[in-house]
């Protein structure tokens, strides 16, 4: 409500476009918010009327209460898990992009890497967590970051490789007519063509990073993250708190997703068409 009102105040001073964007925002944001509110009320009604025990399904008001009461803990857990996810995301993305560039440049490498990357893609990467904990020690976050990085690597690699192959023939001819070196052609045409694809990969990878970092916590390692907090709250029968942590992880995942989506939108403004 207040957001809508504030855009309406701003709109007249700006160009007409911002006014349209404001009403567009209200139109795109309002329905899901209303639907969400309705669902929560329905859920609360269901729990209250049927007197469902909290260990089966706590009502949203209870979860909200726990969430507000343990905000500090949830926040601390989010920071731990978020940090692991972010490090994994950056690491996996860098390795994914670099390997994709190499694969695009060296055909043999691509042929060698394809089955391996396909294998990595089908392995339930989180399953590696226990092995990695023994490799890097149960007190380090390294294993979780690596699990996230591996999960991120796959979509980033594939999307980048696809993007690197989307160079239009006319651009290739143009670069040849300029007698551009292969590095010049890569820098001026191939990479910019691939950038939107890289960010599409990142958008897919962003939520994977959070999920992987969080699930990896279930298999061991230091305490403090959201995943560990969910399991420990649940095992001490504190279901409301467990759900509060779940809510925290949903918010964290959304945060990552929205940030990646925003970045993608930003770089895709001048995306090559057709």
């Amino acid at each position, binding site marked *: 409500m207040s957001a809508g009102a504030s855009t309406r105040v701003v709109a007249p001073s700006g160009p007409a476009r911002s006014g349209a964007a404001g009403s567009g925002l209200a139109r795109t944001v309002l329905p899901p918010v209303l639907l969400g509110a309705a669902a929560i009320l329905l859920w609360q009604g269901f729990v209250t009327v049927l007197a469902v025990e909290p260990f089966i399904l706590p009502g949203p008001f209870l979860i909200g209460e726990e969430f507000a009461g343990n905000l500090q803990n949830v926040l601390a857990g989010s920071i731990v898990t978020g940090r692991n996810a972010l490090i994994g995301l950056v690491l996996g993305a860098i390795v994914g992009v670099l390997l994709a560039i190499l694969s695009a440049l060296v055909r043999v490498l691509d042929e060698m890497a394809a089955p391996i990357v396909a294998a990595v893609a089908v392995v339930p990467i989180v399953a590696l967590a226990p092995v990695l904990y023994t490799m890097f020690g149960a007190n380090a976050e390294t294993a979780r970051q690596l699990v996230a990085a591996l999960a991120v690597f796959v979509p980033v690699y594939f999307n980048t490789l696809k993007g690197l192959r989307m160079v239009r023939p*006319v651009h290739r*001819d*143009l670069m040849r007519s300029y007698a551009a070196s292969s590095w010049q052609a890569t820098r001026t045409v191939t990479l910019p063509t691939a950038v939107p694809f890289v960010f599409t990969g990142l958008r897919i990878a962003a939520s994977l990073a959070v999920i992987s970092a969080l699930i990896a916590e279930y298999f061991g390692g230091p305490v403090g993250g959201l995943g560990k907090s969910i399991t420990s709250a649940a095992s001490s029968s504190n279901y409301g708190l467990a759900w509060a942590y779940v809510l925290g992880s949903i918010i964290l995942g959304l945060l990552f997703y929205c940030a990646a989506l925003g970045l993608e939108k930003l770089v895709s403004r001048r995306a090559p068409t057709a």
Partner: protein
Amino acid sequence: MTTAATPVQHAVEVNDISRVFTGRKGASVTALDAVNLTVAPGEFVSLIGPSGCGKSTLLRLIADLDTPTSGSIEVFGKTARQARIDQDYGIAFQQAGLLPWRTVAGNIELPLELHGADKAARRERAAELIELVGLTDFAAHYPDQLSGGMQQRVAIARSLAESPSLLLMDEPFGALDEMTRERMQNELVRICAETGAAVVFVTHSIPEAVFLSNRVVVMSPRPGRIRDVLSVNLGRMSDRGENLREEEGFFHSVSRVRELLHGAAPTGARGVETR
């Protein structure tokens, strides 16, 4: 503009060129068969013919974007490859082929940037060219904000960036509507008169070929051959203007080209374009 120190040198010399494309199952297509052609410095030569006559292939061979199966090509006395490396030609394609993430100015600066021109020189040259093609107000726009005709003008400006003495154009106006097309032709005639560059221009429009050219090379398909070369005596580039399209000589040349294209049979209607 040109010093004319070496008057005997041709801008383009194509000697007995053949280009055979080999298909996957061993089937081969002869795109060009024993083609000879010379283009003098400053001359405007159009290649015209039905699809599949190898006109685009010939242009790509001159540009060294493709290599001939047999025969040789010289551009300003050098091999086509050397001429490409030395940046002796500018090229424009049917698709404008602009980089969508660069502004109009950025696109025009591209070849200069690749060849190490410094920033100030690039700016200045781009501004000149933008003015030449009449896009002064659009320098900071991105290609997707421009119409097809404007994009093509940017592509032409880009091909002129390094003041080449040879312009290779592969149906640059092919995707434009008739009105825009005629306006672009007028502009090209003006630009050619100003720059004094030789042009090899691929088209499948008869009036376009006649309006622009000193000579029209009529090609026939399967295998691609030069059927005839028609000299168009419609005066110097700088004198050609909108009125030329109404002149008797223009209509005469148009019907001559059409006769050559259709294999000598004289046609009734004059000045009507058949595509």
